[in-house]
């Protein structure tokens, strides 16, 4: 069986959601192994095993948390040389992208980014990536020897625990991590607190665009979101205008979300936005322009003014909840 590795990003020993998605894919393609690095990584081993990792490589040196990319690349390059996996998959995240790209330059092997699927083909791999805002699906095959490196977009695969997973074989690595060469070091971390569920995890997302007219009008979205237990998202136009921080941005250069319900308010539905949300089970759009492209994918579209409809909607939701 092919050796398929997953770069398992963890935060304080908890795998990021994308890691479980990647493992779900990896175990379907071959013998899955996970590489989890940084303080607390060993705590993630059981979960990684549940999602299909037969083997988990752990290294708990703090450098993996505090220094960008290079310690992970050094370690992966050594491990790859020794164990010769066939495929290494990474989440298309900030860290995943830097590590995979550097590693590809180090090893001289193919790196395929922005992928939504990997399948076996002719003894090798075929990788599918959406282009032009997801209107076209492009299939790429690697031409190099050595492991193929693939960056998979979050939410491309639904995470499912493996049925019959035993405890993984845990290999704890302790070889010294070199940080003497010039590195990028994290001095401090700042979080921009948002109330309610995280965008990536939310069942319902209420998302606002330039049609809201002014930053203060997001207050009514917050109110609606609170009533629905929803997270608040935004289009890039809103983020570029400084109305909301980047962490709210949904789309090609923002987050990919797959909620049960996505409510787009004053969003035109540009391709670069819809690529990040068209995986929603149900889409509702309110826009005053009947020609807005968002109506082409909405299950329910209302042509009207958000300033009028949203406050009414908050009342309607309240009254239905009261019943």
């Amino acid at each position, binding site marked *: 069986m092919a050796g398929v590795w997953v770069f398992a990003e963890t935060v304080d020993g908890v795998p990021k959601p994308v890691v479980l998605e990647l493992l779900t894919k990896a175990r379907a393609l071959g013998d899955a192994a996970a590489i989890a690095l940084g303080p607390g990584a060993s705590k993630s081993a059981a979960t990684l095993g549940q999602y299909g990792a037969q083997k988990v490589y752990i290294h708990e040196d703090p450098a993996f948390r505090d220094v960008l990319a290079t310690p992970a690349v050094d370690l992966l390059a050594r491990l790859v040389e020794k164990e010769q996996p066939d495929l290494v998959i990474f989440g298309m995240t900030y860290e995943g992208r830097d590590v995979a790209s550097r590693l*590809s330059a180090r090893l001289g092997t193919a790196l*395929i980014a922005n992928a939504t699927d990997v399948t076996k083909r002719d003894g090798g791999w075929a990788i599918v990536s959406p282009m032009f805002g997801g209107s076209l699906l492009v299939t790429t095959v690697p031409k190099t020897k050595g492991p193929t490196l693939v960056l998979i977009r979050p939410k491309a695969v639904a995470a499912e625990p493996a049925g019959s997973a035993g405890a993984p074989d845990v290999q704890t690595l302790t070889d010294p991590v070199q940080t003497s060469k010039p590195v990028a070091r994290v001095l401090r971390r700042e979080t921009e607190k948002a109330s309610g569920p995280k965008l990536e995890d939310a069942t319902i997302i209420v998302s606002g665009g330039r049609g809201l007219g002014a930053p203060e009008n997001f207050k009514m979205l917050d109110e609606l979101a609170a009533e629905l237990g929803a997270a608040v998202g935004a289009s890039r136009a809103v983020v570029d205008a400084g109305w909301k921080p980047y962490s709210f941005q949904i789309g090609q250069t923002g987050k990919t979300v797959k909620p049960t319900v996505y409510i787009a308010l004053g969003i035109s539905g540009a391709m670069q936005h819809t690529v990040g949300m068209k995986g929603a089970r149900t889409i509702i759009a309110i826009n005053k322009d009947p020609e807005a492209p968002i109506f082409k994918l909405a299950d329910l579209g209302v042509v009207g003014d958000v300033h009028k409809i949203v406050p009414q909607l908050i009342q309607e939701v309240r009254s239905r909840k009261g019943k």
Partner: protein
Amino acid sequence: MNVLVCVKQIPDPNAPGKLDPQTKRLVREGVDLVLDPGDEHGVEAGLQLIEKDAGEVTVISMGPPKAVDAIRRALAMGANRGILITDPALENSDAISTARAIAAAIKGQSYDLIICGTESTDGSSGAMPAQLAELLGLPLLSFAKKLEVSQGKAVIDRQTDDGYDVVEAPLPAVVTVTGGINEARYPALRGIMQAKNKEVRQVGLSDVGLDGQAGKAALTQEVVDATPAEARKAGEVVEDKGEGAKRVADFLKALKVI
């Protein structure tokens, strides 16, 4: 302070993209070509650094001879000079070839900082800058939404999922900038006139000693298929005549989310 800014020429992102059915590559003919808007922020970031602290901005691009127009645009914004790596053998290169070509072309030059966009607007793989950093053995400060350079160090605010990290690296370093880092200036007429006289050096693969190691001869991957994705079907669109909110609430109720 010498800053190198990597810029890419791309088909106008406001025009819908097309793939050549034969080569499965982006069609560049008959489409307006522009300096990648993402890279304008890189040029701007470089210019702001040398305005604070003396120095020069060199822009570098790999592409067809026409890519000189993208370089000229950066020169019109105020960059000092340009390098264009162009060679028929580099047509349809992978990101890694771009990184190799740029690394080879700047060998022996002195620079404190290399600035790139986080990802190109057309390809959007975002791989090239990290590959370049790796080939040059330099630290990479990626996803910068703020950049400060002082005392031989660069410090950035690095975008994260729920905020940002403050990250530091010694110079020289590679930095990738996000669109939020600055407002890119518009070239003034005077800048456009001056750009015509600025030096743009053209180099080929053999000039930089990369024959056979980049471009067609070193492809790591091949596009074998391109098919239209299944589109989502439109549902019902109603006009709000006072009942819009009610309709939405009924819909939500039917979905059992309220």
